[in-house]
Structure formats: structure tokens, C-alpha cells
């Protein structure tokens, strides 16, 4: 069965329609034959009618002839003239009508000479009566020529009539048989069509509606959430087969989803469900749901771990808090006692503060005197510094000049050395000159001696200059140090002045402070009384604190238990 449902339905209807078409064709043919038969009956009647009229007209013509022959009166000739004309007309009409039947045609052709003969005989008698007399005419009539023709005519006409009757009978019988056949064809064809249509309907119903009903039942069960029913897959290739397979896939997919959901419900989140297609809303939602659940459970796991540790820390802290509260309660008791002692001390301090305030006033006056003295010292230091700077400048100039002298000495030394060398060369030249150069040698010796003396003199100058330079450097340094010392002295004096000024300010402030201290210590005394009262209140509060800390500890333990239970719950999930 490689046909799809549309083809099947089309084929069923086509066969039924073909049967109906055949039945209709048969009926149409039958009706056509009946109509034809009726036409032929009318034709036969016409032929018979013409024959009757022909006979009647011939008899009219004979009647007219007889009257005229007998009487010789012209008026009797009218029927003869009319009858002859009409008889001829009838014969032509008859020949036309029987042109389809060869035998009748032969007979009709045979009629023509006979009619012509009869009419000729009648015409002859009429002519003879007219031209001669009754006897001549009577001779012709008595020759029996007319009677014989008439008899032959009648015989042929009777034959034609019989022939037409026989034809009529044959055609009527054929029409009847046709009608009967048509009736049977209609009845049988209609019944056959009905049976075939019924059969096709039954087959289609069984072939299409059955599986569809089956699938509908399964769909109903799936709608109710029952995925246990199996869809039997056959190898049908039509729409029903496709639908069945799609249904089977859908059921399988739903069952996979349900299995995954079961796994998740059991706490196992490791399912890796693949969506059937990108537009698989349920599959994608499932994947996202498992991902989200996995993340959330992971987060909850971390959270519970944090909660557990935090709860443990809270328990420890609250335990410490409770013990701390107990300790602080004890400490508060001790503090209360101490505060009482402090109150007595404060009384003493108040008296002492008043004495100190008086002393401070005297100190203020002394510090004012000290400030004036330091200002005078500072002015003196400034003058010293100016003079030291002048000295330092002079020393610097001296040092620079010593440097210049040193350079001049170097030049002189160089000149002495060159002179010495020149003297030696002169002596050498003198020695080469021999006896004549002796005098020159003495001069050279003298020049050399002078150069030596110059060198010694410069040496001494250099020694002295070195001493001077050393002394100058020492003096410069001493001056600089002196300047620095003076500057430092100035600064220290300034600082001393500032210190004394600050001291005077401080002493003044101290005096004010001492006065304030005296007043404050009086207030302190009053305050201490209030503190003693407040400490009593604190003592009561700390007792309550201890009780609260105990309760807090119990509560923290409960939180710890809760955290542990939560952790056990979450650990049931496999992520």
C-alpha cells in the first residue's frame, strides 16, 4: 500500500462515479432507441395513410368517370379530374416515404405504371363518350382493362400494408427488449455502485480512522500525564504512518524529559539533556532549569558551608560574650567602689587647684620681664654678625691675591730654570771654544749662579706664601665658623626669645587654666557624685547583660544546628 490517504479516498469515489456514468450512458441509449422506434411507427402510419388516400382518390376518379359515361353530363367529370390529380400526388409522396426500404420501393415503382394505365383507361372512356357515344365507352369498360389494373393495384397496396405492419411489429419488439435491458442495467448498476461505495467507506474507515482513534486515545492519556502507553510503529508510508512515527518520537522525547525530571526530583542534577531542536521550548527550558538549579544548589551549598562556619563562629563568639559579660559585671562592681574613692580624691584636688591658680599669676609677671631681656640680646647679636661678614670678605680678597702671587712665582721659577739651562749650554759652547771661550765660560758660570739664586729666592717666597695661604685659609675658615656661630647664636637668641614669649603665653594660659581647673574640679566633684549614681545603674544593666548573653548563646546554638541540618539537606543533591 504505497498510497496516501488522499489517493485512497479519490480512488474509491472515482470507481463509484464510473459505475454511475455507465448506468447513465445505458439509460440515455435506451431512451434514444425508444424515441427512434416511435418515429418509425409514425412513418409506417403515414405510409398506410397515403396508401388509403391513393385508393380513395382512384375510386373517386372511377366514380366520376362512371357518372359521366352513364350520363354524359359534364358536371360528373369534376371528381374524375380532382381524383386523378390527387392520385398522382399521392403516388409521388409514397415513393418519397418508402425510399429507405428497397422492397417497398420496388412495389411503389410497380404502382406507377398501373396507376398510369388505369387513369389512361378512364381518360379513354371519357374521351370516347365525349366524341362518340355511350356504346363505344361501354366496350372499353367491358374489356375489363380497368378492372384488372385496379385489382393489381389493390394487391400491391395490400402487400405494402402488410409489409409496413410486419415492420411495425418487429420495431416494437426490439424497443421493448431495449427498454427491459436498460431497466436491468440501471437496477444492477445502482446496486453495484451502492455496494462499492459502502465497501470503500468501510475500508477507508478501517484504514485511517482506526489508527487515528488509537493515536487520539494515546494523546488523551499523554494529556492526562500518562506516558506509559507504547505507540506501535508500522512501516506505513502515508500520512498516518508519518503521524504515528512523529507520535512515537514525541512520546519518546517526553519520556526522556520525564526521566530527566525524575532524576532531578531524586536530587541528581548531572543529567545532560539535549534539546530536540533550537525551537524546542520544553527541552531548552529543561536545560536552562537544570543549569539554574545546578548553579543555585551550588550557591546554596557554598552558602550553607559559610552559614555553618559562621554559625560556629557565632556560637564561639556568644560564649565568649557571655563570659565577657560576667567578667564585666564583676568589673563594674569593682568600678563602683573605685568611683567612690575617686570622689573623695576629687575633693582634695579642688582645694589644691585653687592654690596653684594663685602661684600661676606670679609666674606670669616674671615671664614678661624675661621676654624684654631676650629682645635686647637679639639686637646685639645682629650687630656682631654684620661685622663678621665684613671680616670674611676681606679674608677672601687676601686669599685671592695670594693665589695671584703664587702664579707669578711659578713664572719666575720657570724663567730661572730656562736661564740655568741656557747657562749650561753657554758653558758647553765655551768649553768647545777652548782657550778663547774661557772668559765666556766664566760669564756663563755667573749667569748660572744668578739663575740658582733666583730659584732659591723664589723657593723662599713660595714657602712664605704657602704659610700665608695656610694662615689665610685658616682665618677664612675661622671667620666662617665665627659667622656661623654668630648666626647660630642669633638664631638661638631668637629661639630663646620665642621660647620665653611662648613660655609667657603658656604661663598666662596656665594661670587661666589653673583658674579653670579650680572651677572644673568643683564641677568634677559634683560630676563624680552623678557618676557614682550612674555606676549603680550600670551595675544593674550589666547583670541584665549577662542574662541576655546566655539567651544569645542558646539562640546561636540553634542557628548552628539549623545550618548543619540545611547542609545535610543540600548534600542530598548531586551536582
Amino acid at each position: 500500500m504505497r498510497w496516501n490517504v488522499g489517493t485512497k479516498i479519490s480512488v474509491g469515489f472515482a470507481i463509484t462515479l464510473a459505475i454511475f456514468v455507465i448506468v447513465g450512458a445505458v439509460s440515455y441509449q435506451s431512451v434514444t432507441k425508444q424515441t427512434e422506434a416511435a418515429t418509425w411507427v409514425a412513418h409506417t402510419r403515414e405510409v398506410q395513410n397515403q396508401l388509403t388516400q391513393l385508393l380513395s382518390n382512384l375510386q373517386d376518379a372511377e366514380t366520376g368517370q362512371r357518372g359521366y359515361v352513364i350520363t354524359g353530363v359534364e358536371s360528373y367529370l369534376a371528381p374524375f379530374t380532382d381524383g386523378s390529380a390527387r392520385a398522382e400526388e399521392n403516388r409521388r409522396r409514397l415513393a418519397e416515404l418508402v425510399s429507405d426500404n428497397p422492397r417497398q420501393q420496388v412495389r411503389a415503382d410497380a404502382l406507377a405504371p398501373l396507376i398510369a394505365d388505369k387513369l389512361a383507361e378512364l381518360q379513354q372512356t371519357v374521351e370516347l363518350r365525349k366524341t362518340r357515344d355511350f356504346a363505344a365507352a361501354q366496350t372499353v369498360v367491358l374489356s375489363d382493362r380497368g378492372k384488372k389494373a385496379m385489382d393489381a393495384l389493390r394487391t400491391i397496396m395490400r402487400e405494402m400494408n402488410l409489409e409496413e405492419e410486419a415492420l411495425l411489429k418487429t420495431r416494437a419488439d426490439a424497443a421493448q427488449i431495449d427498454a427491459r435491458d436498460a431497466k436491468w442495467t440501471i437496477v444492477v448498476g445502482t446496486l453495484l455502485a451502492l455496494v462499492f461505495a459502502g465497501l470503500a467507506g468501510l475500508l477507508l474507515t478501517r484504514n485511517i480512522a482506526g489508527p487515528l482513534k488509537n493515536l487520539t486515545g494515546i494523546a488523551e492519556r499523554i494529556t492526562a500525564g500518562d506516558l506509559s502507553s507504547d505507540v506501535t510503529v508500522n512501516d506505513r508510508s502515508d500520512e498516518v504512518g508519518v503521524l504515528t512515527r512523529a507520535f512515537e518520537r514525541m512520546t519518546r522525547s517526553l519520556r526522556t524529559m520525564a526521566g530527566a525530571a525524575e532524576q532531578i526530583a531524586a536530587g541528581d542534577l548531572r543529567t545532560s539533556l539535549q534539546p530536540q531542536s533550537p525551537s524546542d521550548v520544553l527541552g531548552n527550558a529543561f536545560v536552562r532549569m537544570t543549569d539554574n538549579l545546578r548553579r543555585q544548589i551550588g550557591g546554596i551549598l557554598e552558602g550553607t558551608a559559610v552559614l555553618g562556619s559562621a554559625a560556629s563562629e557565632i556560637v564561639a563568639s556568644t560564649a565568649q560574650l557571655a563570659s565577657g559579660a560576667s567578667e564585666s559585671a564583676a568589673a563594674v562592681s569593682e568600678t563602683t567602689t573605685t568611683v567612690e574613692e575617686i570622689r573623695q580624691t576629687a575633693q582634695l584636688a579642688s582645694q589644691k587647684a585653687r592654690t596653684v591658680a594663685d602661684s600661676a599669676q606670679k609666674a606670669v609677671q616674671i615671664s614678661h620681664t624675661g621676654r624684654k631681656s631676650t629682645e635686647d640680646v637679639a639686637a646685639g647679636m645682629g650687630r656682631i654678625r654684620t661685622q663678621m661678614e665684613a671680616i670674611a670678605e676681606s679674608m677672601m680678597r687676601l686669599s685671592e691675591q695670594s693665589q695671584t702671587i703664587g702664579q707669578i712665582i711659578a713664572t719666575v721659577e720657570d724663567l730661572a730654570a730656562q736661564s740655568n739651562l741656557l747657562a749650561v749650554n753657554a758653558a758647553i759652547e765655551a768649553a768647545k771654544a777652548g782657550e778663547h771661550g774661557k772668559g765666556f765660560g766664566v760669564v756663563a758660570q755667573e749667569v748660572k749662579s744668578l739663575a740658582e739664586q733666583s730659584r732659591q729666592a723664589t723657593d723662599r717666597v713660595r714657602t712664605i706664601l704657602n704659610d700665608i695661604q695656610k694662615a689665610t685659609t685658616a682665618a677664612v675658615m675661622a671667620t666662617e665658623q665665627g659667622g656661623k656661630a654668630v648666626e647660630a647664636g642669633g638664631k638661638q637668641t631668637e629661639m630663646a626669645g620665642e621660647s620665653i614669649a611662648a613660655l609667657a603665653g603658656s604661663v598666662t594660659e596656665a594661670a587661666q587654666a589653673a583658674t579653670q581647673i579650680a572651677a572644673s574640679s568643683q564641677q568634677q566633684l559634683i560630676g563624680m557624685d552623678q557618676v557614682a549614681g550612674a555606676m549603680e545603674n550600670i551595675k544593674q544593666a550589666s547583670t541584665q547583660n549577662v542574662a541576655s548573653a546566655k539567651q544569645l548563646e542558646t539562640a546561636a546554638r540553634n542557628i548552628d544546628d539549623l545550618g548543619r541540618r540545611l547542609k545535610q539537606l543540600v548534600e542530598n543533591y548531586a551536582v
Partner: protein
Amino acid sequence: MTNADAEADRILRARARALAQPPPSAAPSTMLELLEFRLASERYALETRHVQNVHPLRELTPLPCTPPFVLGIVNVRGRILPVLDLKKFFELPEQGLTDLHRIILVQGNDLELGLLADVIVGVRSVPADSLQPSLPTLTGIRADYLKGIGEDGLVVLDLDRILSDPKIIVHEEVES
């Protein structure tokens, strides 16, 4: 100022006295004209007939691939002359070169060269017979180059022998 005047007066007097001294009695024998100089702390002398003149040591150009006693070459008035260091022969301590060093230009035996001297003392005349022969303690090259010892320990060098010594002719090749 009076101080300087007195000093000048003193110097002039000293010179007058020196000049007033009678000249030393003329040497009966031949006199040797010597150029006295110092190497390290020792005193040496050369005969002036070999000496052309003395110069300050300037712009010494060291020569590579030469024996240690060749210090280098100098340009003296357009002539390029080698400079020898006698201290290397006499194993005297090195003191480093300064511009106070002098060179003595000598000539002989078709050679012209400069000898390094620490200090040039001057020219003096010495009687030829006052020179004593070499000390027995002096040996080796120092004995070879010696002409004689003066009265006050002056070492008189024999330049002819120094210049004729084949050792000072430098002929060295360096393998490339």
C-alpha cells in the same frame, strides 16, 4: 722694604766675596771639561766635546717594539732623535718622567742621540789625572762604560764606548 734692601746688600756682598777669591791655580796637567748631571741621586759626568747642548724633555713619543732602555723619540729643532735612558744600564730606580727632565744631545761614532738626565748640574773642569780608575765594586756594564771616578765620587762616563756598544743599535723584528 728695609728687609729686602738688607737682603740685596747681603747677596751683593756674597758675590763680591766670591769674585774676590783668587782663581784656582792653573792645573799643571790637562784639564777635562765635564758636563755634570744627576741620575736618581747619583752624580755622573760626560766630556763636553761629545755634548752638543742640553734641552728640556718635551713631546716624547714612545716607540713600540724597542728594548726598555730606548725611551722614545723627540723632535729637536726639526731633527728626530732617539732618547736613551742610562738608568736602565745602571739599574737605578725609576722616578717617572716630568717636564723637569732634560736631555743631553750627544754626537759621536756617526750617531746622534739624546741621553735622559734628571738634573743638569753644570759644566766644570777637572784635571785629567785626578780621575781614579774604576772601583772594584763596579762590575758588568757599569764598569764597561766607566772612564773614571772623580775626587768627590763623580762618575765620569766614556761616551765613545757607550756609542760603540753594538747593543744600543736596535735591530728587532716583531712577528706579526
